[in-house]
């Protein structure tokens, strides 16, 4: 049995973030994420990161789950911390032969890393605390273009089917003695297996479209769902958006 990499695995827990209305949650955290990635002050970005961690803690998501998701994204953040100090011009604070590191570069690298890390952390309380189908339905209710919602909906449904199909292909290859090595033959074989998966996906797409049409699909599927905003949803949304706004007000005041 395949272990599905489900983002909503812990959506049945109980926390303030889990109880938060999905529509308000998407809006509030989206505003906060945009506010944090647009900060230009290192100290404020750090406060933003601390705030993000607090929201994450409030979501009660297991550490192991959080760690798994953040580690992979963090790998893309680390290069900024290394490259920026070496490439941005400014006051040198370290030199070793031709290697020169600048304070401005280090600060800029840290700023990029802090902003990215905050955004990645905030995605978890935003998405991992709601069943993914409800997140999709919330996006639909928020009038996100139907084409995007459908792409998300069908991707979510079929990514697991393709994962199983790829696993089956991989097992069939392993059963006939294939082992993955870093040589041209292995890469070519994996390429062919992926190609087969694409062809199968195309054929499945055709069959799914037939199934959709045979149940009256006309390009705009609707779903039934009831969302209800409570006072606590308004308060929590105001708190998150207020936090985002206050960071920018402080930033603005400091510039003046």
């Amino acid at each position, binding site marked *: 049995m395949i272990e599905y990499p489900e983002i909503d695995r812990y959506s049945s827990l109980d926390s303030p973030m889990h109880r938060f209305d999905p529509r308000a949650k998407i809006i509030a955290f989206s505003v906060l994420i945009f506010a944090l990635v647009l900060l230009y002050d290192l100290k404020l970005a750090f406060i933003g990161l601390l705030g993000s961690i607090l929201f994450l803690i409030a979501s009660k998501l297991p550490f192991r789950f959080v760690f798994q998701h953040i580690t992979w994204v963090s790998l893309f953040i680390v290069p900024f911390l290394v490259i920026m100090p070496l490439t941005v011009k400014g006051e040198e604070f370290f030199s070793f032969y031709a290697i020169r590191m600048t304070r401005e570069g280090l600060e800029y690298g840290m700023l990029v890393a802090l902003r990215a890390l905050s955004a990645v952390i905030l995605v978890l309380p935003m998405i991992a605390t709601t069943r993914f*189908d409800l997140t999709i339905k919330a996006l639909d209710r928020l009038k996100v273009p139907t084409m995007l919602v459908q792409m998300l909906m069908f991707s979510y449904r079929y990514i697991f089917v393709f994962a199983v199909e790829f696993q089956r292909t991989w097992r069939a290859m392993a059963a006939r003695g294939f082992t993955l090595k870093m040589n041209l033959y292995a890469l070519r074989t994996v390429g062919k297996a992926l190609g087969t998966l694409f062809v199968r996906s195309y054929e499945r797409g055709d069959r799914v479209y037939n*199934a959709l049409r045979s149940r009256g699909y006309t390009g705009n599927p609707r779903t039934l769902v009831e969302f209800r905003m409570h006072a606590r949803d308004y308060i929590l949304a105001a708190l998150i958006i207020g936090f985002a706004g206050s960071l920018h007000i402080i930033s603005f005041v400091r510039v003046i």
Partner: protein
Amino acid sequence: MREAITVRNLGYRYPDGSKALEDVNMDVYEGERIVIVGPNGAGKTTLMLHLNGILRSTEGGEIELFGKSLEKMKREEIVKEVGMVFQDPDDQLFMPTLFDDIAFGPINLGLKEEEVRERVEKAISIFGLSGYEDRPPHHLSFGEKKKASLAAVMAMEPRILILDEPTANLDPWSRVELIGMINELNAREGITMVIATHDVNAIPELSDRIYALNRTIIEKGTPREIFFDGELLKQNNLDVPDVFKLFEVLRAFGVRCEELPLSLDEAVTGLTKMIETEGGHIHLHVHEHTHEELGKWKRKYEHHS
């Protein structure tokens, strides 16, 4: 009896130019259970996709549903009349949860939310899927997915149900359960059924009449007429139910069986009758022609082994 589906001179070519269907003619009466048999690549699925208007004939011909030309019917009218259960439930269950999937069809029919919810609840309870409403399809077993596919189509309350290989890949219990459900739908709601299957042991239980298809209709008749046509079976890679073969063997051993049974139920009735008429027992023996008859029997099914 009123005709539910009429197919006249239907022809179809695949986009690569090869012929899939040629001069297909079929009459399905209201409340009937029709099974379409044929070897792989005979065009069974292609024919079924024509019956709900997904494919349109490229070579002429006409299809009528309850006397109305399919060509003149709107898409909504067709999906209201004809429900299709696809072979692979992963093709059919495309929504994020089971509830959404079953609600998908009724919503597209333009029903009010209350009625949609009623239909979903009814379908879920009929097919024994209560408690699974919020599950995504990848968390259902194959048997559950198959039942969910049927529930999703039945929630649209069609008068005609088309099933493509309904028992394929099911475990024995799920297979029996699904056959029971299909027959109950036919008996209780009078739904007309068109079923394509390779499951010969299920055919006697699922069919009133059989159409044998190999690009064109090569034969039609009751299960008994089709299964007794040895030449037809041989030429089209078709098989007969195991119980039928077993009683052919018993005949070679001297059992006086007037009518070969096609299903276990028929076998039980036949055996009981035989034992009653033969004084409380049946007698098996090897006589002078037994080996010759067994040889003939073996040769008859040689191409299947």
